């Protein structure tokens, strides 16, 4: 495919980036590992690409029980950071199960959270896709739908979110800092994503000029030793999840007092399994309880012709993840 040229501008400061980012047709580039693929595939054609990679937003800090990660920190730096590896092994492990070493050296945390769906119609050409070309139809719904979502879809779009890190960060109640034309704000990461509805072209709640500056994860010590990210994939490495589950349990006196279950690969955004989480509360961990959590997780799933297997896979993955972390410690 041929891709139209774009102007390149290097942001000199956060404010400068925002000012440029507000302009119509501009796009931020951080590591570029997703943006450039999309550009080469003809999916996106920005008039101006604003390079934010040199902004001073790559600090990683772990103090006062709070982990702060600059949005421009490279995935490889985060995974290798001593404090992350020590206090947040779940984050480190999840990153190391994402993409490849080369890509992690380039990819940033902010870019990872904002990477776009892997739907092959979205990244294709000459095929319908409402997300790429609003109103053209959804090719995946009646076509190649193995990747498609089971939950949260709309008539317009059935695509999944591909980020591993987002699944885990949402399980850890992460927040993000955003700066934009209207100033700075902090929101829960879960509020960043939106369901496709009638407007699938819009993945997030960000508006033009909004720059993610950092990610904040508060104390998760109560889950220590009882957190896992289960990623099921078609090959052993360098591949997105078919289905994934981030699970965390807080067990006191042999009883589950808090739980987190978030699934990836099955919805347009990291999918919180609230019913299963709630059911677990007050229960003594056992295989039977974990099976029940798996059964609840799949309620309401809406499969298409090729992705029905993900229902069983999700159920089994929830069980396996809970079993992995729910045993005697």
């Amino acid at each position, binding site marked *: *495919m*041929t*891709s*139209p*040229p774009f102007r390149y501008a290097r942001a000199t400061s956060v404010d400068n980036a925002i000012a440029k980012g507000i302009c119509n047709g501009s796009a931020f580039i951080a590591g570029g590992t997703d943006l450039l*693929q999309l550009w080469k*595939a003809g999916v996106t054609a920005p008039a101006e690409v604003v390079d934010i990679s040199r902004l001073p937003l790559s600090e990683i800090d772990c103090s006062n029980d709070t982990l702060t990660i600059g949005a421009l920190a490279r995935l490889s730096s985060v995974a290798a950071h001593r404090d992350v590896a020590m206090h947040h092994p779940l984050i480190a492990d999840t990153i190391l199960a994402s993409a490849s070493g080369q890509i992690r050296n380039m990819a940033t945390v902010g870019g990872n959270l904002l990477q776009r769906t*892997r739907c*092959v*119609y979205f*990244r*294709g*050409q*000459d*095929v*319908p896709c409402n997300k790429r070309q609003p109103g053209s139809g959804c*090719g995946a719904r*009646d*076509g*190649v739908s*193995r990747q498609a979502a089971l939950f949260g879809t709309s008539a317009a779009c059935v695509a999944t979110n591909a980020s591993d890190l987002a699944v885990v960060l949402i399980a850890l109640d992460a927040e993000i800092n955003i700066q934009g034309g209207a100033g700075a704000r902090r929101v829960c990461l879960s509020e960043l994503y939106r369901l496709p509805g009638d407007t699938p072209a819009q993945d997030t709640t960000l508006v033009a000029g909004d720059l993610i500056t950092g990610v904040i994860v508060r104390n998760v010590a109560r889950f220590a030793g009882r957190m896992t990210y289960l990623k*099921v*994939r*078609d*090959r*052993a*490495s*360098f*591949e997105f999840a*078919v289905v994934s589950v981030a699970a965390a349990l807080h067990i006191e006196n042999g009883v589950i007092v808090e739980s987190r279950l978030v699934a990836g690969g099955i919805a347009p955004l990291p999918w919180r399994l609230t019913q299963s989480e709630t059911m677990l509360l007050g229960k003594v961990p056992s295989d039977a309880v974990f*099976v029940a959590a798996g059964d609840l997780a799949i309620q309401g799933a809406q499969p298409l012709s090729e992705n029905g*297997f993900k229902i*069983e*896979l999700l159920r*089994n*993955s929830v*069980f*396996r993840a809970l079993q992995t972390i729910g045993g005697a410690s």
Partner: protein
Amino acid sequence: MSDRSVPRYEAALKVTGRAAYEGEVPAVGLLHAALVEVPIARGDVVAVDASEAERTSGFATMVSYADAEPLKPSPATALIRDRAVHFAGQPVALVVADTLSAARDAARAVRVTTQARPSVTHMAQALNTAYVPAMVGRFPSVSNRGDATAALADADRVVRHRYETAANIHHPLEPHAVVCWWEGDKAVVHTSTQAVFGTRAMIAHAFNMPPADIRVISRLLGGGFGCKGQLWWPWMFLAMLAAKKTGRPVRLELTRAQMFRLVGRRQETVQDLALGFSTNGCLTGIAHHVTAQSSTHAEYSDATAVYTRYLYACPNVTTSHLLVRTNEPQPVPMRAPGTAPGLFALESAMDEAAVRLGFDPVDLRVRNFADHDQEAGRPWSSNSLRDCYCIGAERFGWARRPAQGTAVDGRWRIGWGMASTMYPAIRQAAKVRVQLAADGAVLVQCGTQDMGSGTYTALGQITADALGVPVDRVTVELGDTVLPDGPFSGGSQVTASIFPAAAAATAKLRATIAAMAIADEASPLAGQRLDDLEFRDGSIRSRSGNVGEPWANVLARKGTEGLEAEGESGATQHPDLTATSMGYGAVFVEIGVNAGLGEIRVRRVCGAFAAGRILNPLLARSQYVGGLVGGIGMALHERTETDRATGRMLGETLADYLIPTHADMPEFDIALIEEDDPHLPGSVKGIGMLGTAGIQAAIANAVFHAVGKRVRSLPIRIEDVLGRR
């Protein structure tokens, strides 16, 4: 390690990044090319309008069917001479400009008007149009030995199933590229091809010019696997037309996405296979019927069921091949053509039969070993398949195979499986020229090419051995039509083909030097008997007389500038053969299935291969391992996706089209079983295809062994084996 394990001739160039590929050849005034594609899957081009493109900066020219029309009609020019559109994403024009991005900008500005017509985007939509091609490769499409229908009706046990294989893409790392220019009426074409002489012949035909006026050069290839052949020619011709039109050199390189569509695929197959047995485990009847995809602009069928005619002893065998034309890209041979999909079916069914009959899978195969070629009714030139079973089983520890469904490792359910592999050993005509300089340096030349599989190394080694010099004295030149005619690189036949030609050339040189020495009063060998002389350690020596001298001295005293000789050898004459030649192998695998999650990972592979004499164990091992990795890909990962509504291929990137990563490759234990074969020059058989076939069935059989589920469709994925926790 054997002293025959010589490292790659071009290893240092490649690992230091200095290896220059043909697409990198510099040329003054070079123009860059981009292809203009159309979205429709079937129809006609009404108009190609370049008026807007002409205004883009750097634009040089556009060529389309109007420019290609004067080319002579042939399958190689059909796609570019006609206005017909046969598949979605088909190029209809080529634009050249000063830079690559200018060419791409210009290509985007070309306006193509098309008239779409109803298309067939999958075999399943047109099964009623299936037809029998005349031939599948060099074999008849249909075969009947005995009466398979009656035998299957009478059999004590029948295993009858449908097997399916997905379309795969070759994906050599180096994409197809050409840098070409015209010098008056003569053409110089640097291109990545598996056949420099075949390419020259097609250019000569298409452009109606003498072959001598065309030079095709392909000195290094970054892989081929079967796709650097005929389907590349139309796009290369467009580049040549643009070079002619502009009078400037032109460079075209395919994008990775175009490699999914424009240069071939392993065809999709649906195979109905029935095996009939007597209760004592002997095959009594086999029926293997294949339906496969071909395009609407060319015809190709793998010899998928052909090997079912040979592998086992069975009096009643019927096979057939059908093709269904669709508006999808055209298939071509891909590494282990025919054997990879065909043996998946046959060797899966044999495993099912072993379970049904209560035989060990290895024993059942040994029991049905074919001690001669039953199809042609003649002996094998050599056949060590039983040694492959035996040695492979021994090294793998097959005797300790756990009962089906019992082995676990943590949460992984473990399965073992095995299968056979085979491939015909044939030769093409070849010429090899060897030059000796007065200082003893050796130059060997052949116009075949090295796909990356080791042809430089093998030819250098053969020559060095024959002349009794170390390999580093030998310079090897390949991949150029100014060199002696060499074979195309395909069908695992290059080494076997050039061996006798090199042997003939070096034999002539040895005879000349020996005669010179005997006749030379100044030589310590003066007056020695010719048949007593040998070439060793750079010298010519008398075996009995214990005298000798460096053979370069013989040349030097005569004041010759050097010597030169050419050797020639012929292609396999199939009708005249007194014996059938094939290479064989047995592959054993251990896989794990992540219980309840369906992930399948290969944990251990042992391949035992018997394919004549091994010239270089290091190269052979690398060929087998590479082949096995490709086979793992076909078994577990590789599958093209097509949107049936539009006919458009989806996921045209290596992020979407999965192939094995290093983490998917276990350790490979390779047993090289050497054979003497009196029917073959130097006992050399091809080896490149063997590893790529067989392992698919071995993996499927191991999956059954692990989880009790038969998967008869490739690739085997999570959804196929997902069971309850």
